[in-house]
């Protein structure tokens, strides 16, 4: 039988606010244990949560970016469960009145196919703390620094049909939240975490199969692998005549398998009720309009502009627009370089490789965009060869000076004086009569030998196109004159 996977994702986006969602403590990653857990985060008696305006603005911005309904009236509820890293015994979340209603996100697959994925809702909530199970014999250590970090939980409809689509969706969300500057997008630090609801059904069926939920997947690769594993596990059960049991599972990346979380078996009864500590949130239409007016150009619009206006390929445009920092750098370089394709090549090639080598972010690129632009312009006006441009780039990287200073200081200016080049060529031909004879006897590839010799004699500064032209001319002309 042919099986169709049906996948929905719940993505927790950690909002990049300065302070927590309900307290004035810092949500910064990596602090000393509990050094960022204030009395509100600890759930001490007598404290009151007060909602962070910036978290609300970011949620609204996200909603507007996915063309969602923004609810001018939303409510915070208590989601009740006991776990040591949840000190209050409940998580403040939103249940039946979320801030963001239905919207859509368009994903594009590698083969160019696009799919519109419906988003059911997005709601604000607080994160829990962290439990450290390994370090203390017989005890669990609790770090509550993460407690109260603002999260936007983005829930999709079960519209995804393959692990690849799920990854494309997760990546598109990742790009979007970074464009909106509402999340730092750092997956390794857990800034975006994903739960996947997975079921399979016979191809063509309209009813959904029983699903399982895979918790806490935090990389693009693991989203694909965890879902793939789960699909295969469910198909195996169904094909051997069994039934898929509804459960909550954890993905183990070391063994590449999902395992049932027994603790969740009986506890799926959260008894939500409106949090009496928080009043309903009311948004004015003016506020929503102001947030809308502040929306930046979004990744898909930017990509479309790169393919239509700059004539870049789909691949190049996708590569350059995925991360707004890359796209910003690209556009800044292009402003001086005036050559989109060559700029794209430099950014996707040498610049990207050098950043990777030195483990740097685009925003920390040591080569200012104007200098890389100038370098590309100098290639295009034949001041330097493409080959020596790489030398200049490395010198820019180590801050040796401006492009023109480096070219002059290192004497890299391209030789394009044809008289001088002809002299060099004639000398090389005189010094290598055997190779001249070979070429004239029809061995065309000896030309490469001459190009090499000219480059060597000019320390790579000759313009390769011009060298080729002059060489062919000299070799043929003299051949002709002898006849």
């Amino acid at each position, binding site marked *: 039988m042919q099986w169709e996977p049906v996948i929905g994702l719940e993505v927790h986006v950690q909002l990049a*606010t*300065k*302070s927590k969602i309900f*307290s*004035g*403590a*810092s949500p910064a990653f990596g602090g*000393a*244990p*509990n*050094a*960022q*857990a*204030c*009395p*509100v985060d*600890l759930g*001490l008696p007598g404290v009151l949560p*007060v*909602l*962070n*305006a*910036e*978290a*609300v603005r970011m949620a609204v911005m996200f909603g507007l970016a996915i063309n969602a309904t923004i609810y001018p009236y939303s*409510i*915070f509820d208590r989601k*009740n469960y*006991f*776990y*040591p890293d949840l000190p209050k015994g409940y998580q403040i979340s939103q249940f039946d*009145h979320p801030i963001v209603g239905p919207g859509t996100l368009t994903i594009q697959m590698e083969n160019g196919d696009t799919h519109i994925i419906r988003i059911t809702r997005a709601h604000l909530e607080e994160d829990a703390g962290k*439990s*450290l*199970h390994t370090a*203390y014999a*017989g*005890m*669990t*250590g*609790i*770090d*509550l620094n993460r407690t109260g970090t603002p999260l936007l939980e983005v829930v999709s409809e079960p519209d995804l049909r393959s692990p690849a689509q799920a990854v494309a969706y997760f990546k598109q969300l990742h790009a979007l939240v970074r464009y909106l500057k509402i999340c730092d997008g750092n997956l390794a630090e857990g800034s975006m975490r994903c739960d996947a609801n997975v079921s399979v059904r016979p191809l063509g069926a309209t009813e959904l199969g029983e699903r399982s939920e895979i918790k806490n997947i935090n990389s693009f690769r693991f989203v694909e692998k965890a879902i793939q594993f789960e699909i295969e596990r469910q198909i195996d059960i169904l094909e051997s005549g069994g039934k898929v049991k509804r459960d909550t599972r*954890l993905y183990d990346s070391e063994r590449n398998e999902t395992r049932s*979380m027994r*603790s969740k078996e*009986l*506890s799926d*009864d959260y*008894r939500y009720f*409106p949090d*009496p500590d*928080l*009043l*309903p*949130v*009311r948004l004015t239409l003016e506020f929503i309009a102001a947030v809308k007016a502040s929306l930046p150009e979004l990744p898909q619009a930017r990509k479309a502009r790169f393919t239509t206006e700059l004539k870049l390929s789909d691949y190049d445009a996708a590569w350059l627009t995925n991360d707004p920092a890359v796209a910003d750098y690209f556009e800044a370089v292009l402003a001086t370089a005036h050559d989109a394709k060559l700029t794209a090549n430099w950014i996707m090639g040498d610049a990207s490789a050098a950043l990777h080598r030195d483990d740097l972010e685009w925003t920390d690129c040591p080569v200012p965009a104007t200098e890389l632009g100038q370098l590309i312009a100098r290639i295009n006006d034949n001041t330097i060869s493409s080959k020596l441009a790489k030398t200049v780039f490395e010198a820019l990287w180590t801050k040796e000076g401006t492009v023109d200073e480096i070219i002059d200081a290192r004497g890299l200016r391209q030789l394009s004086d044809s008289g001088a080049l002809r002299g060099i060529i004639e000398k090389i031909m005189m010094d290598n009569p055997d190779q001249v004879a070979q070429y004239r006897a029809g061995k065309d590839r000896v030309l490469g030998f001459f190009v090499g010799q000219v480059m060597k004699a000019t320390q790579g500064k000759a313009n390769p196109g011009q060298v080729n032209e002059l060489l062919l001319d000299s070799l043929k002309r003299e051949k002709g004159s002898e006849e």
Partner: protein
Amino acid sequence: MADIDIKHLCRLAQLALNETEHQAVRADLERIIAMVDQMQAMDTEDVEPLAHPLEADQRLRPDEITEVVDRDRYQRGAPATRDGLYLVPRVVE
């Protein structure tokens, strides 16, 4: 009258009650549910659901760090701490 699963409620509330206490809690809950049933009987067709008894909206706080965390002081009340962590009996996952 709804059938009350006391054991389930105790597990959700993390309460360890003995058989006698079960009986007492059951009697209390039955009275509470009877009161809720009485309220349910009201016609609320045209009444807007109320999320909060106060006729007010949530005030928003500017996004600023205002808390100075005095970890040592906060941890003085905890039964066990080490390396800045709160220690609790092992949680199995």
